[in-house]
């Protein structure tokens, strides 16, 4: 790791101010940033730790609306009783991120802002039609995720919370990479009054995406059998030593079927 200045922000306003200096990066758990710094692949001049800002923590379920503070750890999301009752699929997703160490450090805001193409949360946000709330504005998930590690966030913009409506049914099914255990293909299905949304992470060569053909099939008939008839193309899917695009295309379908079955 190169020399770096560490700052611990106590408020979002302070964080925004600190983050405007030099080549600063926000630290919200650091599950990606710190390993990248340790291997010298990332070299910010300053890191601004926002994971201890109390205002950014916690899960709130109010009526049908769920709000999760950006600095809420995966462990706290996974274990939140209200969320487990309202949208168990999200708590379940969080409970399978990384390992216990990662789940106690990593945060939803950090994961979403990083937009790793193999991260789990982006699939949930996109399928749930969630809103990403920042210190400046609100951005819909459809507009937020823009490609590999690319988001709609502007310089100095800080994710403060994630908000979504409780779906009628939802489930997430992940096929982990055998080595890293990141999602090699993860599918989140959500059925709400507005229709069915299916988001796929870990598979697309431009990050998380919606599987429109599967959505169409499930809109007609929300059943695993309905997915069976869909042909998933390998075009636009990632290929690496662990999974070819064809294999990922198969996994998209299999994970979608299993997610639908799990959603009940």
């Amino acid at each position: 790791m190169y020399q770096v200045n560490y700052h611990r922000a106590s408020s979002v306003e302070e964080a925004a101010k600190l983050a405007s200096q030099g080549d600063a990066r926000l630290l919200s758990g650091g599950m990606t940033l710190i390993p990248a710094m340790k291997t010298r692949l990332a070299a910010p001049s300053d890191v601004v730790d926002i994971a201890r800002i109390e205002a950014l923590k916690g899960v709130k379920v109010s009526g049908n609306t769920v709000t999760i503070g950006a600095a809420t750890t995966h462990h706290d999301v996974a274990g939140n009783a209200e969320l487990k009752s309202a949208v168990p699929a999200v708590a379940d997703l969080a409970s399978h991120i990384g390992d216990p160490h990662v789940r106690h450090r990593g945060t939803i805001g950090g994961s979403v802002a990083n937009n790793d193409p193999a991260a789990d949360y982006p699939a949930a946000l996109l399928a749930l039609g969630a809103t990403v709330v920042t210190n400046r504005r609100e951005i819909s998930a459809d507009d937020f995720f823009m490609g590999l590690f690319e988001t709609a966030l502007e310089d100095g913009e800080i994710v403060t919370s994630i908000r979504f409506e409780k779906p009628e049914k939802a489930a997430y099914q992940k096929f982990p990479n055998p080595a890293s255990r990141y999602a090699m293909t993860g599918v989140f299905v959500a059925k709400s009054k507005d229709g069915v949304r299916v988001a796929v992470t870990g598979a697309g060569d431009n990050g998380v995406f919606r599987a429109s053909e599967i959505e169409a099939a499930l809109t007609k008939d929300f059943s695993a059998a309905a997915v069976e008839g869909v042909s998933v193309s390998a075009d636009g899917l990632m290929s690496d030593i662990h999974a070819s695009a064809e294999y990922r295309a198969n996994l998209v379908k299999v994970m979608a079927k299993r997610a639908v079955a799990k959603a009940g």
Partner: protein
Amino acid sequence: MGIEGIGARVARKEDKRFITGSGRYVDDMVVPGMKHAVFVRSPHAHAEILSIDVSAAKKMPGVIDVLTGKQLKADGIGNLICGWMIHSKDGTPMKMGAWSPLAVDKVRYVGDAVVVVVADTKGQARDAAEAVSVEYRELPSVIQAVDALKAGAPQIHAEADNNLIFDWEIGDAKAADEAVKAAAHVTKIRIVNNRLVPNAMEPRAALGHYDRGDDHTTCWTTSQNPHVARLVMSAFYNVAPENKLRVIAPDVGGGFGSKIYIYPEEVVCCWASKKTGVPVKWVADRTESFLSDAHGRDHVSEVEMAFDKDNRIIGLKVDTIANLGAYMSLFSSCVPTYLYATLLSGQYNIPAIHANVRTVYTNTAPVDAYRGAGRPEATYLLERTMEVAARELGVSPAELRRKNFITQFPHQTPVIMNYDAGDYAASLDAAMKAADYAGFPARRDSAGAKGMLRGIGMSCYIEACGIAPSAAVGSLGAGVGLWESAEVRVNAVGTIEVLTGSHSHGQGHETTFAQLVNSRFGLPIDQVSIVHGDTDKVQMGMGTYGSRSGAVGMSAIVKALDKVEAKAKKIAAHLLEADEGDIVIEDGTLKVAGTDKNVPWFQMALAAYTAHNLPSGMEPGLKETAFYDPSNFTFPAGCYICEVEIDPDTGITEIVQFVAADDFGNIINPMIVEGQVHGGIAQGIGQALLEGAVYDDTGQLLTASYMDYTMPRASDLPSFQVSTSNTPCPGNPLGMKGCGEAGAIGSPPAVINAITDALGLRDIAMPASPQTVWKAANSAKH
């Protein structure tokens, strides 16, 4: 056996320090004034070094010095060697290319060490390493051994035409050819054994400390054999004369073979300490380990196995190409020859065998022994071939094996080995019973009803351990003898130190060796300390590899204990005014048999050291040394059965049961033996399902971290069912065979036989990852 003696499940003495974080590893060693080394490594698989500019790096904060291969050569540091001479079948010696600890004009794999930076902190050394400017001219590279032999392949070493190191054979080519011609059936198959990265939990590390006043060097290093390291560093690498070089291998966190060898880094740390005047420490990070630890396996073989009309094997022909990487590592030449082809008879009576082995340079990390070392390659080849043959012949795999088992001992194979004892049918029966082999068809059907594919596979392995008779290995090209030494020091109050050349880096010697002493003299194991891993404390010894610490290392301890016992009895007889032939040792007391006359052990020891009342002419003290040279290899064997269930939708293979029935000869501590088997099987399943080193076409290692190299995790493994049915080894005093490598040797073919059974396929590549299995399952459908 007593509660702490041979055969007792004694908890490991060493675990207290390991599980409380009190172990002391090389990285824990701190010497006043110590500085930190970072290596600049080649980013290219094959390139000429045009120039090296260290001027900017030298000016960086905290930098002590930045040193190059030219300086190392100028100081007379030698090239790294391979210590086992193999001759090609035309009589020419193996073609060993020069391996400078720091590359001088050429780099030959990604990770080849080029420059070393020494600085106050590791961070400063890293910063300065980035400021070193090396100008390269890239050359074409070759990764696969088969490609390296093709005409026009990039030439890696001037010494080895077309990258061929040697072209060696064993056995009777004519007899094997005739058997194939006369056969009623011949099974032909290509067998690929995938390349693995050892991944010891503790990365390699070295600390060199040159003492100017004494002109003496101390080297702490992560070694399985510190005396061999001292010998080689002094005799071949000119680090220091043996009497001025102390090598210490303290707690070492796993080796699996990869810490047998002497690598560039320890040589450079010792030399750099002398050059700079400061102690120099280097600790590998994980990616350095992936890049530069010696890898394992990487064979491609063509096999023909000939059967007569009664399904008896009448001949075996094997043609193997083994990838040795960019340089010949210390024992790389013996692994694909004498540790591999000599085991090609397996558990079977095969009258004619011929094996040809070509070893090849490629632009990859050096390849050397890795848990099993040659024997997993032989076992995988034979046991895959047997399974395929049984399917082709339409007979039960178990019965085909049983029909061909060797049943009379000793048995001379056509490939050097003389098996001394075994009962292969007993292990097969035990494994089949434990696995409920007969109940498999019903289990397969009920899995099928859920849409799952279930398969069963077995493997009957044999290995040669307890390496090895020194004269025999000498005649086969070994540069060293493979005996072991021991010294037993009885202290004045009777407690005991056993100094052994066997190094413990996970094997539990501190417990098992003490159990042996407890069995002999009745002292609690807490009063017995095992000393190892320091050339200044322990007499010359050969170290730990090839499952030799029990069969060879403990045999040396037995010899020293025999001498101690003889002298102790003489002293006791003198004190008790009895005949020494009447003295027996029971529960820590020397007794006159049949009487109540006795002297406690500690009192006898005290008498030895006060020397007030010793037999006339007897020297004071009680300390004996012994060297033991084995008369033969030992031959652990067994039968492993694996049952898998495959999800055809995802290609995930679940191992639903794994049975190991082993014959290890006599056992000191069954709990430690089971631990060894569990660990070995985990590595074997790792090879079969998960692990594989992957280089891209340009020689970049794609699997250089745990993000891409799949290590077995607990959730990948079933609860193993292990048992032993043992035939004592007649060749050593304790009747031991060795158990450290069996699991890694026997398990990969059992797993692959089960997967191919489930899929109805002849073969599948290792690792049988989900993607590979999915592709195979879906192509098999058509």
